[in-house]
């Protein structure tokens, strides 16, 4: 399809990017914490991909290439932002010690239907977007976009070992934050009173 687009059938680009719209938007949102900025960044990413399609060599998957463009766009937007609260793009060292999980004795499964509730979606969104950047981007690529470890490492320009370490910490941080919060919203057992 890419060859056809480059040969002049530009309209096919619409079709090419449809499966990636959500991924690019969520990636931008997790960086920028703002829907309007995320949408703008997503548009810029796709426009840039269209303009530079001829430089896509097919060594990586198209989706991974798009992720790299999104990361660059989002990072440069953060740099351009001249706000008081600015997120540091400096990477903290990876050897920050262990992340201990939240200790509990039993876990009652939260079914996916719970996501129909806005408060549950909000808890998850806040926990993910609240992760430090280097953990958030790895978590986003691996556990939300379902990229392989190798693909995530290639997109982020880090080693496979670093992806694994950061992913583990990200998951433990989320467990630590979300397990107690989700326990509170878990559906209560129904007790039938025998009369």
């Amino acid at each position: 399809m890419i060859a056809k687009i480059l040969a002049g059938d530009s309209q096919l680009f619409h079709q090419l990017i449809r499966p990636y719209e959500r991924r690019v938007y969520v990636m931008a949102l997790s960086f920028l914490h703002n829907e309007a900025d995320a949408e703008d960044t997503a548009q810029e990413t796709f426009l840039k991909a269209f303009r530079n399609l001829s430089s896509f060599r097919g060594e990586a998957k198209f989706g991974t290439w798009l992720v790299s463009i999104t990361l660059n766009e989002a990072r440069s937007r953060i740099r351009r932002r001249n706000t008081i609260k600015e997120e540091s793009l400096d990477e903290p060292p990876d050897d920050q010690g262990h992340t201990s999980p939240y200790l509990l004795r039993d876990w009652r499964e939260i079914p996916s239907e719970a996501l129909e509730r806005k408060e549950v979606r909000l808890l998850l969104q806040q926990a993910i977007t609240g992760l430090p950047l280097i953990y958030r981007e790895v978590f986003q690529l691996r556990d939300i976009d379902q990229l392989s470890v190798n693909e995530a490492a290639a997109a982020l320009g880090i080693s496979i070992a670093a992806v694994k370490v950061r992913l583990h910490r990200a998951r433990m941080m989320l467990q630590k934050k979300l397990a107690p919060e989700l326990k509170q919203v878990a559906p209560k057992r129904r007790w039938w009173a025998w009369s």
Partner: protein
Amino acid sequence: MVIDCKHVWEHISGYLDATLPPDVLEQVQKHLEHCEICSAILDSTRNILILTADERVFELPLGFSERLHARLDEEIRDLAP
């Protein structure tokens, strides 16, 4: 070899991704058989990963697609010879 809870926590991610070496996997599984705390940590982490991967957590804003493709159309028109 018997491993303690803290060691098991270090392997939770690898356990969920099924990437642990066989000897470590066996140690972790043995530990999980009798440790309700580590089992609950594993269950909660697995549950949280299923929930966070659900498309409903981050939804596209209304009209996102339409606006994106309209902008692309403008770009395509501008680049046309």
